[in-house]
């Protein structure tokens, strides 16, 4: 049976077509302001890549914050889907940190069964999310994709208080006025995100092996500081943005 997994996140919407053994098609686009329409588009794109029609799908499983806005046979939380999606790539994983656009999650997984043992999500705070990185990138006048390259060049350790995204923005402007370099400030932003996530993760005790998913898993700067803070080299799935949609397929 062919299954489509749809992950409608705050920033990205992903679709995966699964044939029961392997991935047949994937598609990914920014969520935009009409998640329902965007979900339809990515599903069509993924079906096109898999060279299939909608009628050949056995089930559609939705996850992510927009899961109730789309037509689906099953709706599963992103916590369960991330755990299942990561377990597909790394069956031995015991901790998953998913850093998404508007929230971050820490999930403890039983590697024997793949079941979620416990989880935590950040609440009412953009610090520690992809949105924080985007906001700070606007202040630094850089593309969010440049964080890793810039952070590698940093010379001086600068600490941001990361109380909240708005305070951090004004703090960053103050540091720019002090003449701090873009590289040092990019590193400071990455470190702030990493520290915020680790602070939450440590509440659950990080059990190795650890995997990182979500858009921020593609940010080398944040990964560097996460590794430094935790003292573990995290595993990153080949497509860290697609693990939620893949997990949705595997939830049937």
């Amino acid at each position, binding site marked *: 049976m062919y299954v489509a997994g749809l992950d409608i996140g705050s920033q990205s919407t992903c679709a995966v077509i699964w044939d029961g053994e392997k991935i047949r098609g994937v598609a990914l686009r920014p969520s935009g302001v009409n998640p329902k329409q965007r979900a339809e588009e990515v599903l069509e794109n993924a079906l096109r890549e898999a060279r299939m029609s909608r009628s050949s799908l056995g089930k559609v499983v939705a996850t992510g*914050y927009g899961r109730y806005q789309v037509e689906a046979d099953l709706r*599963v*939380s*992103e*916590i*369960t889907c991330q755990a299942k999606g990561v377990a597909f790539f790394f069956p031995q994983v015991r901790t998953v940190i998913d850093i998404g656009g508007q929230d971050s999650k820490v999930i403890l997984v039983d590697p024997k069964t793949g079941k979620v043992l416990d989880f935590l999500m950040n609440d*009412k705070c953009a610090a520690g999310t992809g949105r924080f990185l985007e906001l700070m990138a606007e202040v630094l006048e850089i593309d969010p994709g440049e964080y890793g390259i810039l952070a590698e060049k940093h010379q001086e350790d600068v600490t941001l208080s990361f109380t909240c995204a708005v305070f951090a923005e004004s703090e960053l402007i103050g540091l720019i006025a002090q003449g701090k370099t873009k590289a040092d400030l990019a590193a400071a932003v990455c470190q702030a995100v990493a520290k915020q996530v680790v602070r939450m993760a440590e509440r659950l005790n990080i059990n190795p092996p650890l995997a990182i998913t979500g858009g921020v898993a593609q940010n080398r700067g944040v990964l560097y500081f996460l590794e430094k803070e935790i003292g573990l080299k995290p595993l990153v799935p080949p497509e860290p943005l697609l693990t939620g949609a893949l997990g949705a397929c595997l939830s049937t």
Partner: protein
Amino acid sequence: MHKKSAFLLQSISFLLERPTLFALLKPYLWWLQWKNPFPTLAQFSYRITLENVLTLYGRKKPVVWASLFFPAEFIYALDGAPFYPEITAGLFSALGVGAIPLFHAESHFFSADLCSYHRLSVGASMLRFFPRPDFLCATSGICRETVPFFQTLAELFGVPLYLVDIPHEFSPKTVRYVASQLRSIAQNLKRDRRVTWDFERPFELAQKTQTVLQEIEALRRKKEVMILPPTKNLDYLPYYYQFMGSETSLSFFQKLRDELRQNPKNPLPHRLLWLHLKPFYSNFLSALLTELGLGIAFEEFAATYSGELKPKEPFQGLAEKITVMSHALMDEKARIARILQWVSEYQTEGVIQFNQWGCRQSQGMNALLRKTLRGEGVPVLFLDGDHIDRRHHTEEQWRTRLQAFAEMLGG
């Protein structure tokens, strides 16, 4: 504030302070009684709410404000009408009129980080929406914010505050210490307000209610019995506190017991323990719990006192009640031990604690609670939000957490 709004608020408070106006409720109450001689729980609650409005705003008896853990039996013994501002804050929020007093309090230096039960109550008191008190009674347990909150109320209304200091530890010595304070308050009230005391009737009613509550709890321990929708029992809070020691509480719980016996509903698949209270302004959470199959087998605030109240030693009995109940919530070891006991007794699969915004009493021990429960293999979810102030609630965040929790339990 806009002139029209200010005029409207002043008009409301003017009308609320006219006791004779509330006499108009009498024929309606009589008609309700005639129409529904055997009321359902909802009809009974509606009538009791109106009767309570008539008593409090109509100033039928001395109006005595009390903090949640000050025993209502003490107030019934002096033939007063108990009023619990924290409970009424929940009612205001449920009626959708919480935003005005919250805003009013915040615009008068009451920080938005303070507990919203207290913030709303202060705002409603400043606006004269609550019935004017004759005097106030409060305990320093379970929440340390209660003392400055009641001191503020006493200042606002210019009435005496009788404060009972509750030590953290529980022992015969601390019970004697609390009893001596209650005795002293009673003597002062007798001297200053010519109060006559009769503990016989309220104690008798409280003991009878206690027996019925034990029957209810014995029923709720059965897997086929569940109060639905989930968290509904927390709407019955006034009967556990404000009306304890009166016919009202006894009648209500007799009806609840009979309803649980006669009309067992299909229980939800999962049985959970609920810690702290719940949002009153929205039914979303209750509907979501139902949708996800998460039933509530027992609630922390439905725990009652099972000790004996003796009219011959009224202050000793009441002191023991206050101290035992405060200790069970203030002391982390006592609270966690009791939670574990409930998990076992009510056969719950997990625990949900609703983290009330700004509540130090409950959240201060979250780490210890989680560690102990996880150590015993009991899943626990901390759900952040606010029971009173809807600005601190995010429905979709609740949905994700609760759905993941349900999947975790089900998987």
